[in-house]
């Protein structure tokens, strides 16, 4: 019991003292996961909207596939991206394996299905309500899709934040393609895994607390945005 108490105390000292090692790990985590979520959103939101308003053969199959991919195991994504980026792989010439760029790629692959599948659902529900009105006003399907993205923007923010939570909290994919190299590709989750196995519980706990606080903060932010938006726009 006293071991746990000491670990918490030491962890708190690391956080409160703004220990440079800890700060650089947190910053890299944020940089990788935010980049991944930005890129994933740019791909997945239009994709989700297109599937929501589109009518094409295989649509139902695509939706089932996307929904299934939401549960993609991070280690499998890590392995696939590793194979793609390794020297012998098709994208080996980029030479980005074991760099933060590779980690961004892996997390993007992981998050795209989540944002696409959830935004498809939200936008399709809205489409049911807007369909006749938008067509009556003469909107083409692509322009209707853009209108719907804008009109569901507050729900989509929540979805994008869920994607960020997933990216920031996963360990398997970044571990494989990043390699957990100290000062280069070490992020919060890989550091926690490593420090725990080494027995350096204060650093692991400190990072764990920061990660938890971050996730909490994001969820509070999402709730706040929704609340304000509903009050302001109905």
């Amino acid at each position, binding site marked *: 019991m006293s071991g746990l108490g000491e670990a918490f105390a030491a962890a708190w000292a690391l956080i409160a003292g703004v220990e440079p090692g800890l700060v650089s790990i947190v910053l890299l985590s944020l940089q990788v996961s935010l980049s991944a979520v930005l890129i994933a959103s740019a791909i997945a939101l239009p994709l989700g909207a297109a599937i929501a308003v589109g009518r094409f053969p295989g649509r139902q199959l695509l939706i089932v596939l996307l929904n299934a991919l939401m549960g993609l195991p991070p280690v499998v994504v890590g392995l696939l991206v590793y194979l793609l980026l390794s020297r012998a792989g098709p994208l080996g010439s980029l030479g980005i394996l074991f760099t933060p760029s590779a980690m961004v790629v892996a997390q993007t692959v992981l998050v795209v299905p989540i944002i696409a599948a959830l935004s498809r659902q939200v936008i399709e529900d809205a489409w049911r*309500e*807007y369909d*006749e*009105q*938008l*067509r*009556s*006003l*003469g*909107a083409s399907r692509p*322009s209707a899709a853009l*209108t719907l993205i*804008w*009109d569901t*923007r507050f729900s989509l923010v929540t979805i994008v934040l869920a994607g960020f939570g997933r990216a920031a909290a996963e360990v398997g994919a970044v571990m494989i393609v990043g390699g957990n190299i100290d000062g280069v590709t070490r992020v919060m989750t890989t550091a926690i895994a490593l420090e725990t196995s080494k027995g350096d519980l204060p650093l692991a706990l400190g990072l764990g607390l920061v990660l938890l606080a971050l996730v909490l903060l994001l969820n509070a932010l999402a709730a706040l945005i929704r609340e304000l938006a509903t009050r*302001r*726009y*109905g």
Partner: protein
Amino acid sequence: MLPLELHNLRFSAGGHPIIRGISARLEAGPRSIILGPNGAGKSVLMRLCHGLLVPSGGEVIWHGAKGGDPRRRQAMVFQRPVMLRRSALANVIYGLKLAGKSPRECELRAQDVLEVVGLAQQASRPARVLSGGEQQRLALARAWALGPDVLFLDEPTANLDPAATQEIESLINMIHAAGTKIVMTTHNLGQARRLGDEVLFIDRGLLKEQTPIERFFSKPASSEAETFIRGELP
């Protein structure tokens, strides 16, 4: 673009016939009221005319369209107005923009019509926080801003209180007086009398009669219409 001719129009949904062969001619000028019991096919008939539904058989012919796109010269107001999550003014501008008007034209026209429907004070408020009556006036403004030759209205006052209903009715009359053909469904006989010049009475997917309003109420040609009038009059 008028007259509008319906030639043996049919529509089925899921093998279930809803419109079972309707032929009619709607001339420029008189306000046409589509009357009939619930489930008669009034709304479906109007959606077929407006082009929101594709007929299973028969034809919708705009005789006066002269090569132009007839869709661009008609507008529709729905029972439940669908407001975009933006300001009242932006809702009107949205329709004008889709119609290909320049930004300056959009702005001026939108402000004009809001003035006419009495929503100038609410122009910058989010459309979704307006009252039901205000939203329906905004929907009328959005449709009328397009300067349509024909305005379809699907039970536009079904969800409104008497005061709001009266406002909508006087706006419809003003739009008619300004030269737009009115085609409206209702199951409110009082409203049909107040607003109509002729009645198209629909029962179970068939057009039972097309009669001037006075004659419809004093001497309906079909027994179905007679029962309907007797049963529905307060």
